[in-house]
């Protein structure tokens, strides 16, 4: 009797484990955002170097923990807008690379300003068959109105990927569209690439100067 009971228990356990493994494979978009956010915050909380403004370490953290879940080609396409069509395949690759560098540099730095804010996750409003969803979160801090942060995710073959982040309703991606359009009008796609490269070099210089 006992044997059967323990056998059943083992069976239930193994089914449970298998089921879990399946669930992880097809992580829901809100669960994905939550696990990445929790992950990053736990690290920042313990890392004195990042808290005291070590940009290089913050960039490293973002590159290993956050970047795999972002679709930069899509982000760049959105930021460039209608001029994207006139870019060659090679220009598209360079644009994506430079834009990625700029975003990672800038917003990794924002991580160094994290001071124990609390992040609330809103329930996901999406149907199971949706392939494009918004995950809503709110950052709470004492003495201030909560800041709304929304993540736009798209379901791709290798899982959900973030393609836009909106802070207080402002898209970090489309916010670039006006300036990018301006650059393309004056110097073409290559002009835009050059401006992005210059900007990244300049940021690099300030980071090294700080060290």
């Amino acid at each position, binding site marked *: 009797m006992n044997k059967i009971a323990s056998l059943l228990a083992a069976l239930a356990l193994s089914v449970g484990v298998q089921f879990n493994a399946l669930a992880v494979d097809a992580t829901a978009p809100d669960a994905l955002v939550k696990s990445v956010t929790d992950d990053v915050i736990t690290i920042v909380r313990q890392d004195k170097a990042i808290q005291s403004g070590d940009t290089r370490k913050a960039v490293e953290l973002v590159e290993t923990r956050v970047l795999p879940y972002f679709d930069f080609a899509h982000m760049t396409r959105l930021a460039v807008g209608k001029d994207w069509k006139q870019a060659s395949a090679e220009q598209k690759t360079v644009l994506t690379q430079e834009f990625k560098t700029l975003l990672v540099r800038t917003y990794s730095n924002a991580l160094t300003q994290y001071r124990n804010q609390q992040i609330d996750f809103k329930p996901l409003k999406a149907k199971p068959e949706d392939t494009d969803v918004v995950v809503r979160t709110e950052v709470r801090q004492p*003495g201030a109105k909560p800041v709304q942060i929304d993540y736009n995710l798209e379901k791709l073959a290798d899982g959900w990927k973030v393609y836009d982040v909106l802070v207080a309703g402002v898209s970090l991606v489309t*916010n670039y569209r006006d300036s990018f359009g301006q650059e393309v009008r004056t110097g073409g796609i290559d002009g835009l690439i050059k401006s992005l490269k210059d900007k990244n070099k300049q940021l690099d210089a300030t980071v090294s100067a700080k060290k």
Partner: protein
Amino acid sequence: MKNSNMPATRSLAVRLAPLGLALALTACAGAGGHPRDPLEPLNRATFAFNETADKYVMRPVAQVYDYAPLPLKVGVGNFFGNIGDVWIGVNNLLQGKFVDGLSDGGRVLVNSTVGMFGLFDIATELGLEKHDEDLGQTLGSWGVGEGPYIVLPFLGPSTLRDSVGLIGDLEADPVWQFKEVAVRNSLSGLRFTHRRASLLGADTTAEQAALDKYGYMRSFYLQYRLNQVYDGQPPRVKDPDDE
């Protein structure tokens, strides 16, 4: 009697003057620029002025203020937040959001009493959420368009609609009702500094992120206000350029 009315009338006229100028200039702006920014050359000049003023005065002052202990800063934020909740409630009522408006009234009652003149935000802990409304948003919710983008001296990004709203906001602002100029100016100065200090950090991020800070801030402001008018749920349009 006549004399005591003078300053208010005059200050209103002074505040309206730039708007008149802006409107006049809108009419003669040329084509080719940003569709929502016909005053771009003037706005860029004001923006440059604001940046300089910020760099040498506002930001340094905010940095000193930022050394104050956190509980003190939270108290200051709560105090001005409580004062602001009255007008926020009025605007919620004007927008037909009666539950929100009543909740704002409840916030003021709770925070002005139990919260020690608004220094503590007890209402939020009781579940009465803080809202963010102003006359510009109310006008927006009534369907008033934004009009041209305007950079106001010292105050920064705005639109014609929001500038008109701002005049109403100031007329209704409890801080501006103080008869003693010294008290009024100290309070508005403190409030301004507190707000500026809360943006420390975000300002460096914007500086680093932007290829052209003027354009970045313009785009930021317009998106931010649209989001506010729709209370955080602006219509989600599928991007025509995203294929």
